[in-house]
């Protein structure tokens, strides 16, 4: 298969504007003749569904939660980046672009990232116009703060609830279209298959989670904004419902999966505390604006933090990365935390934790200022741990958070299956091997508000010629395949719960394909995953029937997909024999323990094509061409 990323020619700064003028348009009167399915109602899905309906298309939107307002984008705390240069500190589109490319360790596509930086300003304007209550200065103008990997203040925020407020903005725009009848919304409905007719995506098969009814929906184009797959690790900062199912089933229908091994471990989470634990909680990265990260200098120093004098503390981020300090990017901060814990200097009962200390800032700024900036995060921390972070430093540790890999898309956000578009975290394109803080919200909204509504029209105008309805045999076949699989799950009647398999898989992935990987660990995982999968299909127990609200059945389908997807992830990690961003191969590090990239052999996107159950997927390479930036070793020193 020959991949064409359709990157426009010409200078980087002019590509998008040029492309917009070249995209084919759909006449306003004809837009209502086209139907589009949007799966997912997070920042990407809701903004896309609302914008497409505003344009006049017939839109159907699906989400598995009880309301589109619950999508996991809601949990993002810290902020959203935009190159507005409101602070007069030297920010620019180019600088945001460069920080993002560098942050991603030069494994993302230049043209996509530049466009992201370009439209970032419009996103803020759009959200302000929707009534998103961003933080303001006393003069009434928008306030900013800094995030990791940047030396300017370009992060816009709404207290510690930025994702919530941006999502509510998009949800309200979507709700308006639902009220007007322009969007048909399907809550508590899960996509279980993609339907491809004559090589084009023409619809989906869904399961109503309340009644179990399997049904088909045909459309002229399908958009997936279904988020990331960090729950492959079982414990992650993702909501419990986040899953890979929609993406994975599209992959099985021919969509290429790109860079599945690129996962992000967030450095600022509350550490694991027990075996029953169901998820990990993120404390915002913004805390590192004022919090200082440290561990004792001596191994096994179990004194209370207050009793450890300044001279016996190691502020390791400030020591190792003096120019970025506590705001070093996530992959680097996470690895640095792992390193000090591996040395035996970790804190807390498990030794898997480091301090995030606000005492200096409280002294410098006063408690009320800190309360104003981070109050809700401090409360949340106290609820979970019963510790008061105003008095004693927070305990934090890295946790799986975001996935940069996803389905492959071209510059138009279209996958290799014509008519199938992938937006937000579900695609692979903008963050390379590591995502900088406050840029997931930016990408979700950029795709949904300002990219897809332009590019999808080009597909519809040029390619969506044949109308397909849900009585096409391809839908019946897909429905039957889904029903067969469901029956199979319900018939196993074994002795282990779905969660116990998910936990086992998650631990295996965390240990062998987590913060650090190597040839041996990946081979161990690759050997073990099929064994767990085999046991799953022989020994899982799923009670009840399909024709009812059945939580275990829902989970079982998702875990079955994780059990296959995990293998793809490890296969990709094994193939990429270099270290870059969040993908740290222990074989490839400098004497100082920094990631060592190999641009000669791996400056590419690794794409995987499904070839059949149990068969090794095909490897397809998209070379990354850097026309404007020069590849260089990332340094935050």
């Amino acid at each position, binding site marked *: 298969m020959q991949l064409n990323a359709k990157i426009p020619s010409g200078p980087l700064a002019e590509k998008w504007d040029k492309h917009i003028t070249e995209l084919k348009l759909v006449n306003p009167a004809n837009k209502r003749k086209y139907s589009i399915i949007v799966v997912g109602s997070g920042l990407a899905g809701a*903004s896309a569904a609302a914008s497409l309906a*505003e344009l006049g298309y017939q839109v159907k939107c699906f989400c598995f*939660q*009880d*309301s*589109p*307002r*619950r999508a*996991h984008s*809601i*949990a993002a705390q810290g902020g959203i980046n935009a190159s507005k240069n*409101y602070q007069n500190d030297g920010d620019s589109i180019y600088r945001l672009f460069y920080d993002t490319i560098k942050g991603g360790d030069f494994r993302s596509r230049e043209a996509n990232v530049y466009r992201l930086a370009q439209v970032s300003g419009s996103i*803020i*304007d*759009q959200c302000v116009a*929707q*009534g998103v*209550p*961003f933080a*303001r200065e*006393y003069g*009434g*103008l*928008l306030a900013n703060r800094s995030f990791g990997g940047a030396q300017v203040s370009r992060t816009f925020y*709404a*207290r510690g*609830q930025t994702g*919530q*407020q941006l999502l*509510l903005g998009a*949800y*309200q725009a979507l*709700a*308006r279209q*639902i*009220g*007007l009848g322009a969007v048909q919304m399907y*809550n508590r409905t899960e996509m279980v298959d993609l339907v491809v007719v004559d090589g084009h995506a023409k619809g989906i098969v869904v399961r109503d989670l309340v009644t179990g009814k399997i049904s088909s929906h045909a459309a002229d184009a399908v958009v997936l904004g279904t988020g990331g797959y960090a729950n492959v690790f079982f414990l992650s*900062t993702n*909501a*419990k*419902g986040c899953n890979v199912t929609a993406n994975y089933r599209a992959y099985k229908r021919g969509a290429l999966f790109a860079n599945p091994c690129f996962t992000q471990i967030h450095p600022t989470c509350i550490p694991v505390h*027990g075996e*029953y*634990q*169901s*998820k990990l*909680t993120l404390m915002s990265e913004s805390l590192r604006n004022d919090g200082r990260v440290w561990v004792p200098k001596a191994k096994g120093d179990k004194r209370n933090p207050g009793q450890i004098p300044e001279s016996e503390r190691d502020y390791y981020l400030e020591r190792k990365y003096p120019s970025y300090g506590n705001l070093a990017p996530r992959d680097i901060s996470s690895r640095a935390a792992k390193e000090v814990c591996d040395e035996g200097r970790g804190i807390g009962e498990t030794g898997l934790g480091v301090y995030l200390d606000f005492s200096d800032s409280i002294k410098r700024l006063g408690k009320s200022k800190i309360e104003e900036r981070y109050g809700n995060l401090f*409360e*949340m921390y106290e*609820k979970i741990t*019963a510790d008061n972070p105003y008095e004693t430093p927070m305990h934090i540790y890295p946790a799986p958070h975001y996935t940069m890999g996803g389905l492959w898309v071209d510059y138009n956000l279209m996958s290799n299956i014509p008519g199938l578009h992938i937006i937000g975290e579900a695609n692979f394109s903008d963050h390379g091997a590591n995502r900088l803080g406050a840029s997931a919200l930016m990408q979700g909204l950029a795709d949904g508000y*300002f990219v897809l509504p332009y590019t999808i029209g080009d597909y519809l105008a040029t390619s969506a010629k044949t109308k397909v309805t849900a009585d096409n045999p391809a839908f019946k076949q897909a429905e039957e395949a889904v029903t067969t699989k469901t029956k199979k799950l319900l018939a196993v009647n074994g002795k282990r*719960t779905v*969660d116990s398999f998910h936990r086992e898989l998650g631990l295996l992935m965390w240990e062998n394909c987590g913060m650090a990987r190597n040839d041996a660990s990946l081979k161990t995982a690759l050997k073990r995953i099929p064994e767990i999968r085999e046991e799953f299909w022989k020994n899982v*127990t799923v*009670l009840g029937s399909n024709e*009812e*609200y059945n939580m*275990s059945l829902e989970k079982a389908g998702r875990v079955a997909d994780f059990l296959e997807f995990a293998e793809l992830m490890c296969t990709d990690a094994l193939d990429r024999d270099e270290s870059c961003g969040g993908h740290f191969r222990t074989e490839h590090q400098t004497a100082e323990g920094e990631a060592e990239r190999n641009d000669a052999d791996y400056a590419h996107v690794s794409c995987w094509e499904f070839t059949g159950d149990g068969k090794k997927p095909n490897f397809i390479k998209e070379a990354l061409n850097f026309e404007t930036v020069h590849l260089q070793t990332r340094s935050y020193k």
Partner: protein
Amino acid sequence: MKLTLHVWRQKNRDDKGHMEIYEAPHVSPEMSFLEMLDVVNEDLTLKGKDPIHFDHDCREGICGMCSMVINGIAHGSQPGTTVCQLHMRHFKDGDHVYIEPWRSRAFPIIKDLVVDRSALDRIIAAGGFVSVNTGGTPDGNALPIPKDNAERAMDAAACIGCGACVAACPNASAMLFVSAKVAHLAYLPQGQVERERRVTAMIAQMDAEQFGACTNHYECEAVCPKSISVDNIAKLNREYARALKTRDYKIAGGGL
């Protein structure tokens, strides 16, 4: 610690429903309430019994999905806390814990503790937004907003739409929810144009969904996991009175 759970079980919307008793023998204080239920559910599953269905997702106190009445209090005993952030350290060994779903005519039960809250979505769809299409908006700084107003808007906007206010209210009123959205948008310049239409349309929809009216019990504020203030209800009433007085707005449901 060891707890005895009394849980509302109801197979589906048409089933009558009843309380059932389960033992939770190994509860540790660090567990969240939902993690405690996870463990109970694992056990039920292994015994071949249908696990207890409940709504949950982010487990960080922000998505608004979790919803259960614990010992008679929506979201349990801790003020300003969602169920997913309620930890077992607030219970004692030997406690009996009563777990029930949100109860309101407007929230039909789907199964066990899971209820249908789509009425809240329909209220938002009736007018809880600023009518702005994508693109062509002015620069974000073109319209300065006094910090105090932005903060007040944010206080109201923090509502997570969980519906606890409805569950706690003797009238099953959704006024705290509606008022939070109305106040959020009324404090901002962007929300002014549709101010009157918004409040009349949202209230009409609220009534159509058969939520009750507010009679100042303040139970909503007491259970709200985001501590949304009843001041917003006063604001809502003023906005509504103002809308009815200033212009003759037809009370209409559906999109504006």
